[in-house]
């Protein structure tokens, strides 16, 4: 009779979960992979410890003057002392509540626009009302508010004003241009294409130069814009061309049947656009529009070159203060962080919208 011997049990398969497996699979799967892991760790090693040391360990957080900054690290005292300059520029101390209120209203508008449950009419109304309210709040002149000239506006406040006006004012122009470009009427189409391609072909800085030195020549003597208004006109004209291209992308994504159905219903051109085409086109275009808004937000820093005191200009201005000479590094890092937070938040939002749109199209 055959004797059956119990064989030793096989080794269990390598675990496909847990930390060790994860590290093996993602960091150490092959010799070249191991090499890359080591290299990456080395890069992290040369970047992170010195930065942490500079920004936190050796940094100075307490105090009020330059003398309080004794360590080798960053002097965050400088940022704290100059915070008002960074945020409001030269806006008068006693009127700061107006700037704060404006920014708070701006934040509320953004939240309203981003929330899904808010009806579209309220969103549009709040976006349209914001610039008007903001203007009277910041500039004053009514309800006994003291007038604050725009050359006193500065810092983050000015950057936000420029970005908001650029976004809100360029939108209707951009929509009209996009409609013009899609139009069957040759002259309107040609003019729209000419404008869009002209603007998209030149750098923003040349448009800003044009707005600041050539634009005044275009108007009769006596009509004068301040520097801020010129910059706003330049940025709006520039941004409109990019918005137009985004919206055009939206138009092209809409099936032909939608146009034909609208025609079959006997809608006029404007009814068709307003009720059928634009709502769909804009919805499709939103992720790209947010992308252009991010570019615009970064591009607002260019107004520095034509002499406005935006957030970026404040770095130079504060670091040239005789009591605080030579703190550019802290200034640039702080300002970069502010820009980064705004842009990163917007890019995340656009990504989320894009994913949502993608799933909608799949069913």
């Amino acid at each position, binding site marked *: 009779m055959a004797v059956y011997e119990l064989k030793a049990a096989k080794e269990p398969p390598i675990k496909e979960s847990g930390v060790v497996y994860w590290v093996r699979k993602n960091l150490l799967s092959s010799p070249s992979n191991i090499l890359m892991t080591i290299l990456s760790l080395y890069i992290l090693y040369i970047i992170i410890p010195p930065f942490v040391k500079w920004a936190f360990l050796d940094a100075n957080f307490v105090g009020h003057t330059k003398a309080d900054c004794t360590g080798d690290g960053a002097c965050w005292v400088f940022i704290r002392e100059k915070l008002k300059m960074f945020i409001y520029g030269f806006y008068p101390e006693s009127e700061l509540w107006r700037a704060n209120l404006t920014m708070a209203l701006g934040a509320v508008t953004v939240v309203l626009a981003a929330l899904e449950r808010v009806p579209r009419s309220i969103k549009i109304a709040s976006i349209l009302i914001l610039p008007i309210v903001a203007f009277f709040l910041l500039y004053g002149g009514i309800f006994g508010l003291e007038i604050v000239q725009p050359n006193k506006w500065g810092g983050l406040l000015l950057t936000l004003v420029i970005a908001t006006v650029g976004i809100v004012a360029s939108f209707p122009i951009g929509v009209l241009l996009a409609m013009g470009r899609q139009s069957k009427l040759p002259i309107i189409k040609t003019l729209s294409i000419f404008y869009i391609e002209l603007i998209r072909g030149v750098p923003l800085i040349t448009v800003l130069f044009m707005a600041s030195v050539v634009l005044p020549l275009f108007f009769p003597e006596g009509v004068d814009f301040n520097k801020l208004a010129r910059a706003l006109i330049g940025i709006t004209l520039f941004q409109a061309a990019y918005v137009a291209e985004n919206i055009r992308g939206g138009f092209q994504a809409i099936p032909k049947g939608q146009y034909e159905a609208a025609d079959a219903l006997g809608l006029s051109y404007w009814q068709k656009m307003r009720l059928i085409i634009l709502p769909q086109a804009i919805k499709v275009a939103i992720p790209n529009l947010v992308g252009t808004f991010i570019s615009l937000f970064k591009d607002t820093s260019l107004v520095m070159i034509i002499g406005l005191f935006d957030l970026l200009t404040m770095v130079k201005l504060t670091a040239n203060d005789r009591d605080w000479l030579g703190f550019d590094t802290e200034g*640039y890092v702080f300002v970069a962080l502010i820009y980064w937070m705004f842009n990163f938040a917007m890019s995340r939002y656009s990504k989320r919208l894009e994913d949502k749109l993608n799933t909608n199209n799949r069913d």
Partner: protein
Amino acid sequence: MSFLRDEKVRGILYQLITIVAFGALVLYIAHNTAQNIEARGIKSGFDFLNNSSGFDITESPIPYTTKSTHWEVFKVGLYNTLIISFFGIVLTSILGLFIGVARLSSNWIVSRLAATYIETFRNIPVLLQILFWYNVVLAAMPSVRQSYSFFDSIFINQRGIFLPKPIFQEGSIYIGIAVVAAFVIGWFVHKWAKKRLEETGKEFPVITTNLAILIILPLLAYFLAGKPVDFEYPVLKGFNFEGGKTYTPEFLALLFALVIYTATFIAEAIRSGIEAVNKGQKEAAMALGLSKTQSLKLVVLPQAIRVAIPPIISQYLNLIKNSSLAAAIGYPELVTVFAGTSLNVTGQALEIIAITMGTYLMISLIVSFILNWFNKKMKIKER
């Protein structure tokens, strides 16, 4: 009034209104401008281009003195724009490709590192980055006498980077000929290998072969022609280095910022190109028994390129346009010297802005021409 209900009639009417409104606007602006120019005593016309500029330019690829004309200022600016754009495009392509591939790496830490790089530098205005390099990093370099020195021939200090400059003696032309020949031969090798692949299915290491040809041929020419290239080394004389090739802090700050910023977008374009390739394509390649490299080379990359190249080319255009931000640090490119200094000297804003915008527009048109050509060439050929 029933004819107003006709679509054609209305179309013509709308266009007429547009023409009249547009024409009126143009006339109004022209009228105001003419009056303003007269009132302010600004000259008009393009004669100023022949007047001597009266100011100096720190970096000029062509001979330039204070006696040179504004037309020459324009040329210097344009050349400098093209120089920074050329260096920028080459370097940002390399860095962007590197980061893009790292982003897709299966190694978690490499991929995260690349993603962090992209998210950090993409979201910070490029002007801020330019100023940071210029005012913080390059300003912290040592003084001329304490230069960082490498092999006694490369020096880095506050005034920039000093490199040895090659001087081409007689006979250097053979090296040039060898380079051209290498490209021609490489093209034929590529054609032949492609034909062989299609006919017999046998692969040929085209890239390695061509790279070898490209290195060996010019080297051979160099030695056969009797080493016709000398190097001029930078030498410390008094307070500065003389001789050699100098790259100023303005140039370097602009270059670094543009390269680092644009590379984030190129990396994203490469990533989305590769991710856009249908998963079925990779699976089909595997099912055919292709190796991983073969599948990448023959199936994935040709399709990824079609998606990735158009955004990359428009990023190149963005880099060219962003080089105009040099105005903030004074690198003498088109906007800085022509739309800046020349404009201030002559006061002829209208003409100068028109020329500047026209130049950028020409560059953009050329780039979009290339783009269209590429799109047409790469279009999927359907039956």
